[in-house]
């Protein structure tokens, strides 16, 4: 039974990933990518790693994907916003991610009702993970914190510099290359 659920979740994950990387619209691709991440979280749960599944949803689908959405919003998508929004609400756009998410929801309901949680093998809970993380791996935690600090500083620097020196770069652009001045390249 768990094996069938695992195969269904794997199929959803692969299907959604292929669709995410072949879409032409970035926001549609993000929806498929979120479905793929939810499917991988279901696989984690079936494998007996509920803490990893929760982190997958909270950090990947919650934080990183929202970062993608913010950046796509900050890019200038042009004037045809309302027309594109009307196009986006077309059922052909959202029906397939909804069906894939519904499959995952049905799987989760089956797991909750039929089993007592994940009975699919060795259950490694949050306590064991925490003991291992802050026991032998405490140096890795420190290095990860330094990596996150470097990422913070790097993102601040990269995001800050163009705003200060934007006029000179604009002039440089007009000298270097007038090619490809389309602004809504998110859709390509």
């Amino acid at each position, binding site marked *: 039974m*768990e*094996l069938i659920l*695992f195969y269904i979740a*794997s199929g959803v994950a*692969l299907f959604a990933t292929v669709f*995410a*990387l*072949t879409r032409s619209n*970035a926001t549609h*691709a*993000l929806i498929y*990518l979120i479905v*793929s*991440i939810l499917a*991988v979280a279901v*696989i984690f749960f079936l*494998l*007996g*790693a509920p*803490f*990893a599944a929760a*982190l*997958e949803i909270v*950090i*990947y689908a919650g934080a990183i994907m929202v*970062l*993608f959405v913010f*950046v796509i919003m900050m*890019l*200038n998508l042009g004037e045809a916003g309302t027309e594109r929004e009307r196009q986006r609400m077309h059922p052909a756009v959202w029906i397939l991610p909804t069906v894939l998410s519904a499959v995952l929801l049905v799987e989760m309901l089956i797991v909750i009702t039929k089993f007592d949680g994940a*009975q*699919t*093998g060795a259950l*490694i809970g949050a306590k064991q*993970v925490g*003991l*291992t993380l802050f026991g032998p*791996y405490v140096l*890795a935690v420190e290095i990860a914190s330094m*990596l*996150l600090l*470097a*990422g*913070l500083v*790097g*993102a601040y*620097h*990269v*995001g800050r*510099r*163009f705003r200060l020196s934007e006029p000179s*770069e604009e002039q440089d*652009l007009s000298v*270097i290359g007038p*090619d*490809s*001045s389309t*602004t809504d*390249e*998110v859709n390509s």
Partner: protein
Amino acid sequence: MDGLAIPLNHVLIVATLLFVTGLAGLMFRRNIIFILMALEVMLNAAALAFVAAGTAWQQADGQVIFMLILAVAAAEVSVGLGLVLQIQRRFKTLDMDQARRLNG
């Protein structure tokens, strides 16, 4: 595979398929947002392999590595999306073939 209902081989096959999908997307797409998404998919596949192996040997190490992969993915995507904004400002496009020259 002590007590694991799902065979480790099958999970590794799924992780490999996800990784290859991400790699193909990384090579075929030229939009930098899709390139970053493909990188996320590849990191996710690697994390899946780590968690599956950690469960198969009933050790928590796999999930610890999964958390480190999460930290790497968060740092990478924050810097990468900052670069996306920078490239959009400079080249007025997200096509990476326009940005293949060094020094802009």
